[in-house]
């Protein structure tokens, strides 16, 4: 039983820390929304407000387009890297890691430089006489999507590289020997094997895009609010704690839902064809 006590002593500090400082505050935040007086009413009146609906749909829309864009952009890139020699691949992984570890403010600021009123894009467009007036890109949903894609691109690529690299080459070779052409092999052999990582990667990025704060704040501003910026605005600027709590609960639900979907997917797929 002394053994048991030692184990408890080793686990307890982290456990207490997380329960006391994370789980307890979050529960304290969420409970009144769910069980408070007239909680249903407030929740539904929140959802019914057109303004809030707009924000919810914008958030979902932005996350959706971001995820789609990432799938299209990241997959071929990851494929390209995965087929480099090991040394080159390692180097490229470092190059990808660098933006990932760079402050999000810096990364978004870079896009302000590009998309802003006097930014790189507008300067180019006007110099080439394509437009006479600066086009408004910054502080639109498009800017947020671009920023989020830039933010999550390295994450998606890294996830995909690993699963592409660990693909079983011999399956592809066997298919080639039985006469399948490169395109057939790609769509019938390679892609199906990557479904799990493509799906889980997408969900991860989707959840990340739904809850990201810095990018919508810097590139969307107050004209393109999303849930996370709304949460900050409601709580710290407007002091409406109730509304903020409702937004917080919504964000938690989104995160937990994507997590459970990921779990189900990885279980179902890896359960089917365990190595």
């Amino acid at each position, binding site marked *: 039983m002394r053994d048991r006590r030692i184990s408890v002593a080793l686990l307890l500090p*982290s456990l207490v820390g997380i*329960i006391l*400082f994370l789980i307890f505050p979050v529960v304290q935040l969420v409970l009144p929304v769910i069980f408070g007086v007239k909680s249903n009413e407030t929740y539904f009146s929140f959802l019914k407000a057109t303004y809030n609906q707009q924000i919810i749909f914008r958030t979902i829309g932005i996350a959706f387009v971001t995820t789609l864009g990432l799938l299209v952009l990241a997959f*071929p890139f990851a494929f390209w890297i995965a087929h480099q020699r090991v040394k080159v691949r390692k180097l490229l992984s470092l190059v990808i890691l660098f933006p990932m570890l*760079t402050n999000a403010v810096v990364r978004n600021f870079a896009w302000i*430089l590009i998309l802003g009123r006097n930014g790189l894009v507008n300067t180019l467009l006007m110099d080439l006489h394509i437009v006479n007036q600066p086009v408004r890109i910054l502080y639109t949903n498009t800017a947020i999507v671009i920023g989020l894609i830039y933010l999550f691109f390295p994450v998606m690529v890294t996830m995909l590289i690993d699963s592409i690299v660990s693909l079983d080459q011999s399956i592809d070779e066997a298919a080639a020997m039985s006469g399948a052409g490169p395109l057939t092999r790609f769509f019938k052999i390679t892609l199906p094997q990557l479904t799990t990582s493509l799906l889980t990667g997408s969900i991860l990025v989707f959840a990340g895009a739904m809850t990201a*704060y810095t990018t919508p704040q810097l590139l969307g501003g107050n004209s393109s609010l999303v849930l996370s910026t709304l949460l900050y605005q409601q709580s710290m600027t407007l002091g409406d704690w109730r509304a903020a709590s409702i937004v917080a609960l919504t*964000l938690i639900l989104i995160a937990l839902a994507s997590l459970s979907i990921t779990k189900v997917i990885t279980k179902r797929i890896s359960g089917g064809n365990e190595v």
Partner: protein
Amino acid sequence: MRQKKHWLLTLYGYLMLLLLLLPLVLVVVTSFGSQAAITFPIKGFTLKWYANILSQPDFVTGFKTSFAVAVTASFLAIVIGTPAVYALTRRGIHHANWFQTVFLSPTLIPEIVIGFALFQSLVIGIKLPLMPVLITGHFLLSVPYVIRMLTARLLLFDQTIEEASWLSGASKIKTFFRVVIPNISGTLLAIFIMCFINSFNNIPITLFLNGPSLTMLPTAILNYLQNNYDPTVSAVSVILMLLTGLMMWLMERMNGLTHVNEHLNQKGQK
């Protein structure tokens, strides 16, 4: 057995690489432009924006505070998390999965919500001062890094080595400090750096827990950006990128970057 690479794919690869790095290069370039309004192409060459950083008290104190908070939180996370990982990987704990989930729960809840919840219940609710709550928030961010990266390392570390040490007469505690720690020190350092970077760069949690008397660098830049649009931000950004580069170099020397990749694969939230 690799098929000939398609030129189109190669072209695409280089293009994406360019798009990935170009924005950052742009930041570096604009930090040297002499005009207060950032325009393209930049005019002149100056270092005055770097000097200007030092005349922004928010940036200077923000850097110091962010640095101190990041060091403290990372250190705490390692000191508190390491025994837990050791127990989970070595002591045959029942329901180890359940514990893992609890320890990783900071990644399950959106950071902005964590910030809000901490602010509401600890700062408003029980009136704790901002600083300890801020450190707590950053500690929570760091714990999952310790759990994942250290679990990976300890699972690779042959347990019979510890047993050999016990048999040689070293008690379990002595063995932990004289055999286990020296062998995982590289990983511990890599973990420390990862926690540090993550904490130093954090915005969503910091946002709720800073204040007039507690300035943090990322939020200071964010505030500055709301009111100004001049190359000072570029200059600060370059400093931050240099810091990132330095940290990556350190980790590479520690051979810890492989673990980092493993971890980021599973996290990916920002």
